[in-house]
């Protein structure tokens, strides 16, 4: 980590961000329009992410969590995706309306992404070293030798043994966990200020998942990166993220400090999720309380609480008006979008 190359380009550190959050998303909306139908995938998502902070974006399939992350960097398919409203600012720069050339600079340099499947994100016919050094040389204008040293150093930092030898190998010679490490090495190569990790461990075994999560935790600390971790796994969020946002049907339904949100979930969906996953540290006598039904498709723009049809707490208001995120008991840090949030007393009595 203290190799010459690494310290050499530490000098290229960008200026510190101005006041205000590093990454700020406001009322983001994404629609997919095809000949047959329109899918309202993201319906007004807002959040902030600061340097050194970890935000977990939790949701099930179809909740819009991945679409949100792709929209941030203009990676949605141009033919079908529309962004009718919203704002994405990175270090006070508008990304949503930035030209593609500028976005290319931002991607990799300032904001990097890691995806679920590391195999499809790596070019199978080029060596890992070639792919890594290419990134370094284009973005950081290094010469060949510098780039090779820096690449080996990066592999070392993400915990790949014998990095100089492995640089000469092809992606298929790496195991799934090692490939994900390579992807992370590529993502952090240019010392981005924000890392977006979309289900980075979902395809991996648990013991390997633990390795990768440990690596991410360490990187946030040493690099002071902002980490946006997108996952369906509440356990992963609980172990890694300071703040959590729960998504359902394209909207954030509850957000707050992770500890608070897990201890006192106010949205019936959050509570339902927590109650429906078995816990290793709980006895098997504790019955699971599944959420009935399944998510509806998103062909209509939301005009009421999307969770109402599956919710035991739903009121007439839930079925008629769209709830917005509001502070819980005056706590401006913990927000919930619900007309009839779960109270402490209800939570205890329903357990």
């Amino acid at each position, binding site marked *: 980590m203290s190799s010459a190359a690494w310290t050499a380009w530490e000098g290229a550190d960008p200026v510190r961000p101005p006041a205000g959050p590093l990454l700020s998303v406001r009322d983001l909306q994404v629609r997919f329009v095809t000949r047959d139908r329109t899918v309202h995938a993201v319906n007004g998502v807002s959040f902030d992410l600061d340097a050194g902070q970890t935000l977990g974006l939790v949701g099930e399939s179809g909740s819009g969590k991945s679409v949100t992350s792709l929209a941030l960097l203009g990676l949605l398919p141009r033919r079908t995706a529309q962004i009718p409203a919203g704002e994405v600012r990175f270090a006070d720069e508008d990304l949503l309306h930035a030209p593609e050339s500028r976005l290319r600079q931002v991607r990799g340099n300032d904001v990097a992404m890691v995806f679920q499947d590391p195999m499809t994100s790596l070019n199978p016919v080029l060596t890992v070293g070639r792919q890594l050094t290419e990134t370094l040389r284009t973005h950081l204008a290094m010469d060949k030798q510098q780039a090779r040293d820096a690449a080996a150093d990066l592999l070392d*930092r993400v915990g790949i043994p014998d990095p100089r030898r492995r640089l000469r190998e092809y992606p298929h010679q790496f195991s799934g966990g090692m490939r994900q490490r390579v992807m992370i090495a590529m993502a952090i190569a240019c010392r981005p200020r924000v890392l977006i990790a979309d289900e980075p461990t979902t395809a991996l075994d648990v013991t*390997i998942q*633990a390795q990768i999560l*440990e690596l991410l935790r360490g990187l946030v600390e040493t690099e002071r990166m902002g980490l946006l971790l997108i996952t369906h796994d509440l356990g992963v969020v609980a172990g890694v993220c300071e703040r959590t946002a729960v998504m359902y049907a394209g909207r954030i339904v509850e957000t707050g400090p992770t500890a608070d949100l897990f*201890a006192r979930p106010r949205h019936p969906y959050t509570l339902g999720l927590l109650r429906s996953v078995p816990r290793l540290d709980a006895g098997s006598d504790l019955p699971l309380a599944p959420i009935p039904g*399944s998510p509806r498709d998103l062909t209509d723009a939301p005009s009421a609480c999307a969770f109402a049809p599956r919710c035991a707490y739903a009121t007439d208001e839930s079925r008629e008006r769209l709830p917005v995120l509001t502070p819980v008991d005056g706590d401006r840090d913990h927000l919930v979008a619900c007309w009839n949030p779960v109270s402490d007393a209800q939570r205890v009595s329903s357990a």
Partner: protein
Amino acid sequence: MTADLVVVEDLQVHFPIRTGALLGRTTGAVRAVDGVSLSIRKGETLGLVGESGSGKTTTGRALLRLVEPTGGRVTFDGVDVLALRGEELRKLRRRMQMVFQDPYSSLNPRRNVANLVGEPLRVHGIASGRALDTRVTELLDLVGLPRNAGARYPHEFSGGQRQRIGLARAVALDPDLVVADEPVSALDVSIQAQILNLLGDLQQRLDLTYLFIAHDLAVVRHVADRIAVMYLGTIVELATAPALVGRPLHPYSRALLSAVPIPDPRVEAVRERIILRGDIPSPAAPPPGCRFHTRCPFRQATRCDTEIPALREVRPGHTVACHWAEEIEAGRIRPAQPAAALAADG
């Protein structure tokens, strides 16, 4: 103590690695399952846990003769399963059924639900005509699908509902044993619980015995009475669920348990993390001695890399395959290098 429904002794499934197309020379073997012994008691749920490449799926399939074992014995209710041929085997299949991981690919997309659920009854000549329709409706009710589901096709259903269809098929013949291979891991979190509860419900109503195969220890802990942990084709530990989760003896079980995320930040903040080094070795070339020694934080200078540890009973009903289980538990052997060396330390 209830009787054993299934007894597996020294089960082996080796897949030959062949080269050449027409003549074919065998150049090696993937030892997917390499000497597994276990028993499943009548009415219990035995959880089989392991990571990819552990051989847990192959074990389940070999037990049902969906892959051919290359060695060992499987006894089902006193019958030697591996000796059965043709029609006898097909008859036995009535009593042992399977639930698959992927509810999308395990249902023939061209058949409607009534046809799919009725198929086991038809092929075994149990019901036809009006009686078949009645039974199919009963089965749909049993798994919580609406009656009008029968005329519809798999692609019209959500993942959870398809898994219900798969369950209806599996219990149609009123089997004794159901091998459930990752039955909920392809489902969304909120749907998983529905299926887990349904599995429990069916077990009670129909007197089922389950072999529940999964990678997710939390899920297995929730459903299983006893848990067997597999690593590279062998069982490393077998105990009751509370004992295995509460007092694991094998270093691999410990690491596996500590790697399972717990959805509670307060617990996550304080719990011990054993982070294993390296990757799971290939089952085509398993390490000599204890198969786990290449990654084991408790590896000792003697025995570990030379001598294969036998599965032995350390406490009543708690078996483990580790030379040093007692010493590790007593704290006389400590983990060598802090295994968390992988993490970048600031």
